[in-house]
């Protein structure tokens, strides 16, 4: 007979463990149980006793009721990752868990608020991703700009551009700097979600990452999990998304017009206007044939010498603020406007720790507006 907490949800333990980056053995030690016992909790063969659940809550810093809340989805999300090869499985799972949390939060919020409808640009692209040419990608980026009414001008706010078409943006802090961005098409939400790593980023890099991930969403619906596991295919897919990001942020015609001579000082000036990194502009110049391979190499060497590729960073990196997502935060604000008790309800229905909610939504479920009415003092 199974003992322990009756409504314990095994997958919640796996999610929380992945999120906090614990290995099974490490967590088992922290909980004071054997590795076998922990494995049985995670695969549903056994349920932990209430005191073990309390311990889990303390160690993993998740509310107790998180471990007994039903999950909206069971499958692991199909996420496009940058630098797949150099990211460990544990790092990927940690962020996969957060993507699941975000999707669940969105689904709960969707019951209370009406989000902007999904309005992806209609692109004429070949059926299979491998048939998409550079020309198709440039044309796709131009269609996006046309749809958004941006012409050949810099995009003032890339995050807003993405959220305007109904795609929620996440900006969590991820420890691994190689995990710069992710994209996931969620079947339950019926829309994609994209995100970038806020911890190791700059405004220009974050914008490029978002454009790159949007490229995956628009160009790579036909990509299968098997395609991503093939190194050659993966590199090609990444290259396509990079090309899309460059084309979206700095369209071909504008680049030819603005870059009369490719040098670091010219790119530095253009970075101020277009908010696209100097190194990304060197790549763009190479893609468009403005410079040859040797010139691109020498510009990269010069950029390295100037410290642009080190922790020092590029000019304007420390002055331009990183763009903020707004969709999920506005949803919680709208719920709060309806009454504080709804926030309490959200806190219960989205059983995540406060720091996690803050990172995913951009605020906590604590009321921000005081409900104390100040009466005028009598004279």
């Amino acid at each position, binding site marked *: 007979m199974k003992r322990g907490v009756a409504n314990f949800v095994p997958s919640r333990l796996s999610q929380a463990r992945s999120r906090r980056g614990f290995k099974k053995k490490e967590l088992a030690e922290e909980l004071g149980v054997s590795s076998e016992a922990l494995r049985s909790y995670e695969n549903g063969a056994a349920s932990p006793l209430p005191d073990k659940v309390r311990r889990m809550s303390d160690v993993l810093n998740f509310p107790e009721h998180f471990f007994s809340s039903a999950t909206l989805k069971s499958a692991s999300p199909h996420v496009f990752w940058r630098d797949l090869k150099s990211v460990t499985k544990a790092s990927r799972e940690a962020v996969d868990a957060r993507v699941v949390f975000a999707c669940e939060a969105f689904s709960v919020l969707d019951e209370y608020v009406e989000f902007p409808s999904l309005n992806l640009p209609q692109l004429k692209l070949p059926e299979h991703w491998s048939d998409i040419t550079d020309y198709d990608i440039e044309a796709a980026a131009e269609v996006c700009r046309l749809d958004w009414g941006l012409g050949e001008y810099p995009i003032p706010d890339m995050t807003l551009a993405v959220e305007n078409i109904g795609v929620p943006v996440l900006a969590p802090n991820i420890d691994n700097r190689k995990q710069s961005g992710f994209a996931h098409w969620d079947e339950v939400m019926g829309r994609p979600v994209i995100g970038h790593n806020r911890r190791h980023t700059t405004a220009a890099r974050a914008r490029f990452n978002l454009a790159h991930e949007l490229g995956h969403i628009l160009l790579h619906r036909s990509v299968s999990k098997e395609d991503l596991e093939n190194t050659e295919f993966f590199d090609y897919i990444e290259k396509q998304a990079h090309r899309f990001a460059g084309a979206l942020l700095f369209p071909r015609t504008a680049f030819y017009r*603005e870059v009369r001579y490719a040098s670091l000082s010219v790119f530095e000036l253009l970075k101020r206007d277009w908010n696209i990194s100097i190194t990304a502009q060197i790549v763009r110049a190479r893609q468009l044939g403005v410079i040859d391979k040797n010139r691109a190499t020498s510009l990269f060497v010069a950029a390295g010498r100037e410290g642009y590729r080190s922790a020092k960073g590029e000019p304007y990196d420390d002055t331009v603020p990183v763009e903020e997502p707004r*969709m999920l935060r506005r949803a919680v604000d709208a719920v709060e406007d309806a009454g504080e008790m709804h926030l309490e309800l959200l806190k219960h229905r989205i059983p995540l720790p406060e720091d996690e909610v803050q990172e995913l939504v951009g605020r906590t479920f604590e009321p921000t507006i005081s409900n104390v009415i100040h009466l005028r003092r009598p004279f």
Partner: protein
Amino acid sequence: MDSLERLDADIRANLSKGFVEAAESRLHWEYSSSFDDAERRGERFVYDRPDPITQALLERHMRTRASFGMTALTAAAFDVGADVEHLLLANGQRKPVVRTGCFCFIAETIHDLKHKPAFAAYKTGLARANTAIRQLELDLGDRPFHTADWSGCHLGVLLHGCRGDTFTRTGSGLSMFRIGFPNSAYDSWVWSKDVLSGQLSDDLGWTKMPLGKPPKQYDKVAVRLRSASERRETK
């Protein structure tokens, strides 16, 4: 209208933006070519302090920089379909002269932005054509008869230079580019503007961006609270 006013009016009306831009672009490439070549050959540079190799490379760069201007001038002429004549001087040098509209252009190297016209007989000869009254017949030397017609042309000079202090990308790259129009004695500039700082394009109204304001990006991320009945339905 005196001759200076006429020159100014002609520049405003007829100086080709395409020609100036093409010359600027080509000058950048030409000036960076020495450093690019050296870098490609894998020269081991010792940055921030002089050493014999970079000193020799710098000297060679400075000796050949006059050719950068001539190449840029010719290339820009080809870009805009202007005529190019080559003057064969008494010392055997060939100097390109480009005629575009009512201007003829030559190139000259400079050390600083206060540079005064550097005297040369052929330049003075060309400068004398800086008047609409005079019909100049230049002794080109490379032809049996004087066929080149420079009448009514304003002589313009592409003044170009680099810092030249160190053999680095910035030290050897193009850092000065002005367009000057000399007087007929070729001893001072009557009209001169800086190209790299944008002085020329600002003065002539050559705008960098297309006219019109960039479109405004509207915030359409509207999140509406569902009514109580809607909420019940979705639960």
